[in-house]
């Protein structure tokens, strides 16, 4: 799977080992058709883990997302799509451009990390509109930035800019205007250049470990470490380091 983007509101393309999911929903609002297509794209990417090592989620238009389409509202807005995105075995990097409101920010929060360009605006405005975020925002935002900053953003519906998002750790990097997608791809390429098995296992260790009490979480990390000692990638990575040359990982 490489090259040619698929038509429709969700365009999947792959260059080298980095896939890009470009989202182009009508009016920048995630409707049912977009969410279903996103879920299918995630299903395909999960199957393609031996060739796709990192995933960029990006807007095709000016805004990452303004919220949900009328046919996607009702209490479980992100539905299976955001769960499928969050559950991808490969790391996911979201490019935050323009406005990331409501479902737009919840989409970004379903990714592992985020980069924003100058001019981006991030908010969960549901409370000001008499609603409760239904795309995972009340759960993923506190886990991303801590309870204190999350309550501030959730209860006041405050819009923050890229600099404030960087300050509170909601995004990892600020790109120049128009540069979010390139910056996200650059991060994804760096991830894809590391040992792909180790990267997937590291993501698993973080995602599963954070749900465990620390002693059990440390044991999980330890057991996964021992498992990785049997991989060809680790042998190659260590040998390349000792020989002061770039590693050639094979993903096994």
């Amino acid at each position, binding site marked *: 799977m490489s090259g040619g983007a698929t038509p429709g509101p969700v365009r999947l393309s792959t260059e080298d080992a980095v896939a890009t999911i470009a989202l182009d929903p009508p009016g920048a609002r995630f409707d049912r058709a977009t969410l279903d297509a996103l879920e299918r794209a995630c299903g395909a990417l999960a199957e393609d883990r031996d060739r796709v090592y990192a995933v960029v989620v990006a807007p095709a238009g000016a805004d990452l997302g303004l919220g949900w389409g009328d046919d996607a509202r009702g209490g479980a807005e992100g539905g299976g799509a955001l769960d499928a995105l969050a559950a991808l075995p490969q790391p996911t990097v979201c490019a935050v451009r323009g406005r990331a409101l409501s479902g737009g920010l919840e989409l970004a929060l379903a990714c592992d990390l985020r980069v924003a360009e100058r001019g981006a605006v991030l908010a969960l405005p549901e409370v000001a509109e008499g609603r409760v975020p239904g795309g995972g925002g009340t759960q993923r935002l506190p886990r991303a930035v801590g309870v204190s900053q999350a309550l501030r953003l959730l209860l006041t519906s405050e819009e923050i800019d890229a600099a404030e998002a960087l300050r*509170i750790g909601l995004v990892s990097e600020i790109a120049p205007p128009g540069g979010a997608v390139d910056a996200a791809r650059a991060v994804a390429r760096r991830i894809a250049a590391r040992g792909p098995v180790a990267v997937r296992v590291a993501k698993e*260790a973080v995602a599963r470990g954070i749900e465990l009490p620390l002693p059990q979480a*440390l044991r999980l990390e330890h057991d996964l470490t021992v498992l990785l000692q049997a991989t060809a990638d680790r042998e190659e*990575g260590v040998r390349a380091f*000792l020989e002061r040359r770039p590693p050639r990982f094979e993903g096994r």
Partner: protein
Amino acid sequence: MASGVAAERRGDTLWLRLDRPEKLNAINLELRDQLWEALTLARDDPTLRAVVVEGAGERAFSAGADISEFGTAPSLLAAREARLQRDLWGLLGALDLPLVAALHGIVFGAGLELALACDLRVAAADSLLALPEVGLGYIPSAGGTQLLPRRIPAGEAARMILTGDPVDAERAYQLGLVHAVVPASELDGVAAAWAARLAAADPLAVRLTKRAVLWGGDLPLAEGIALERRLAAAAASRRRA
């Protein structure tokens, strides 16, 4: 004695210096065992009030695990069992004594994981902190995948763990990964001042407060509050005695 850990008691504080500067204080089995022994003694010494961990030489706190020793264990199971028997990282996590990490230069891999096992971190302005393991085909294995996401925002932890890219001292400070950034010339002085504050406080109060925070972090809030009440009552009854 330039191949392991230099331990020196200054007043009520134990200073542990990673002392292999020619190897950027890389943590080999010998150094790990010396740390384990020094910390076991510290754990059992009721007169100690604080521990400071620092790195010798100009360039590094620690470059991480000593990779030249990788693959030397007779089998995976033997490596696992040896690690679980002399579990330095488990010992660190169970230590009531407050630990201060004084960081400078390269703070990579197991070096950063050692710092994460400490309670307070002060960094010289030249510090670079990273978990570069995935670039070598493995993962942080001394608590990094678990402690980093518990100490800094999840996205930043994911970025550091999944890219292996470093953060500098200023970004580390912004993220709360270190608690202060100081000129390299002031590093020892600031670490000593923090240790002195810890040593001046009531030792039981310091130890029980550390316990309350770290154990409570794994509990539902109501159970954490109950734990805090038990520990606070223990401290109060001792004071009346």
